[in-house]
């Protein structure tokens, strides 16, 4: 392990800027690197990735490795895995952090197995064990019913990290760092997949991940029409509509509105859960919310155990009265 040094963050971008998860990883990686007395690296793969490296430095990286190649335009495990393998073998980081994103979910295990090491997925807490100097990797397991702390003695130690569980540092554009380019060295014939199309399902209004208020509906909402009523409340509160899994499976609302373990992770100021029972897999996606408010007709529903305020009753009677009172209060 002695040859491996440094903490490396895998950088992702959205709309030409570093993704929120990446700045969060840099914040967390900075702490781990400081605890180990080592450097923080970022690695950025893609095509036309100008500007991102500088941003990674502003958010805490000491060195940024960039691999810019037209073959890296779209993420594919067949192209990204060998490039990352090459980067890791050149840089020899002791720790690699990726986001638990659609890319990270796919790349991290493949990369770990290629490097003959291990990865902990969906970590919610990472720290350095003062004695062994190994990274303590705490992740949520059993659908959020439990948490487990792991270590791995094979190098590099790899973890993916859940969104919104780590804090970014303040952006500081005066920070200095080094940018190093690495050649992709890809053999196009080794790429056995082709990305034919990318479909973005646009949702109206604010993105659920960015919203300060989320109004979420569960199976008890019962219809697409019911979700329109949740939409009205969300609009008044300048928030977004979310859902547990059954409404998405039933097509009452788009799949991208699903909150939870296998959906979006949100931590708004206000999370209003209407006719949601509060299954652990759902709570995994919203338990970081500052104020959770539950409306449910079952007084024993698990959601009340996780909520700050609640009303027991039929949402069909409660919601209209609540919505109009909220509107009246906010209009004042």
């Amino acid at each position, binding site marked *: 392990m002695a040859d491996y040094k440094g903490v490396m963050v895998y950088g992702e971008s959205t709309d030409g800027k570093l993704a929120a998860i990446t700045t969060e990883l840099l914040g967390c990686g900075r702490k781990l690197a400081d605890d180990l007395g080592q450097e923080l690296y970022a690695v950025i793969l893609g095509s036309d990735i100008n500007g991102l490296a500088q941003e990674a430095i502003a958010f805490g990286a000491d060195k940024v490795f960039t691999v810019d190649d037209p073959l890296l335009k779209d993420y594919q495990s*067949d192209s990204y895995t060998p490039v990352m393998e090459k980067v890791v073998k050149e840089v020899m980081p002791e720790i690699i952090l990726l986001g638990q*994103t*659609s890319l990270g*979910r*796919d790349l991290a*295990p*493949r990369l770990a*197995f*290629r490097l003959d090491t*291990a990865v*902990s*997925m*969906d970590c919610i807490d990472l720290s350095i064990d003062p004695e062994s100097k190994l990274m*303590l990797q705490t992740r*949520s*397991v*059993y*659908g959020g*019913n*439990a*948490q*487990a*702390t*792991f*270590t791995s*003695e094979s190098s590099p130690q790899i973890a993916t990290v859940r969104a919104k569980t780590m804090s970014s540092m303040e952006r500081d554009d005066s920070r200095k760092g080094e940018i190093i380019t690495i050649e992709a060295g890809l053999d196009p014939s080794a790429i*056995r*997949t*082709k*990305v*034919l*199309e990318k*479909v*973005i399902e646009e949702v109206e209004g604010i993105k659920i991940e960015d919203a300060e208020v989320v109004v979420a509906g569960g199976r008890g909402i019962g219809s697409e029409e019911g979700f329109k009523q949740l939409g009205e409340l969300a609009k008044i*509160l300048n928030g977004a509509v979310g859902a547990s899994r059954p409404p998405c499976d039933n097509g009452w609302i788009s*799949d991208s509105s699903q909150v939870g373990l*296998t959906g*979006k992770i949100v931590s708004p100021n206000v999370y209003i859960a209407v006719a949601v029972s*509060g*299954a652990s*897999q759902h709570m995994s996606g919203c338990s970081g919310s500052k*104020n959770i408010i539950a409306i449910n007709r079952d*007084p024993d529903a698990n959601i009340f*155990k*996780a909520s*700050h*305020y*609640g*009303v027991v*009753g039929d949402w069909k*009677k*409660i*919601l*209209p*009265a*609540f919505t109009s*009172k*909220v509107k009246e*209060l*906010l209009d004042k």
Partner: protein
Amino acid sequence: MNMVVCVKQVIDPEAPPASFKINQSDNTVVPPSGIPPVLSPFDENAIEAALQIKDAQGGKITAVSLGINLLRDVVKKPLSMGADDLILLEDEAFVNGDSLSTAYALAMAIKKIGEYDIIFCGRQAADWDAGQVGSGIAEILGLPCVTLAKKIDITNGKARIERVTADGYEVIEVSLPALITVSNEFGEPRYPTIKGIMAAKRKQPIVWKAADIESESSKLGATGRRTKLLKLFQPVREGECEIIEGESPEEAAVNLALKLREAKVI
């Protein structure tokens, strides 16, 4: 089309949260009494994906499951849904592994099965939620892998897959053989038919021990682990819920709005 589907028996992930208990002394989960285990739900989506291909163009489906004390009623579900064969890797040597050692045993078993065009896995097992085994099998067998499928079309020896992304999906074409992991967006798995259940009852699973597959014992099960579990625990929930009441549901609703305003929540 020859297809292999990997399935896992797990503690029912939708059991009431209050029934979930941990044995702190050995970092294990206590199976809830009276709640039988189930197939990991995403694995049922994976069986459904294979069955739809079989329905459309014929083929053979072999389900493979690794574990010990596998309840026949649970692991036979793929057969009752319409799969052709069931292989159980049922040996102490295979269990208590991590994602890598589990993927290794499954990959070696699939190698022994021999012919395959598509290997299916669920996107993640509903107990450890790691979502690594599919990628691991693909890596060991040198196959391309597409994760999080919600739709699969097969034409001219290629699969066209809609892969779930954070705000939609992407369409990916992959040459076969390949490994595909399936997400719940694929759609509800079918219910077994009476005929299927009867057929599954008569069918005996094939059981393979470690000696039956060509493998290095140092890479199997607990010996093959790369990760060490230090601690398994239940997170503590703090705080209490303030229940807002009223003479009628409407009044309770108004009181809730007033309370939230007063507490400056909204």
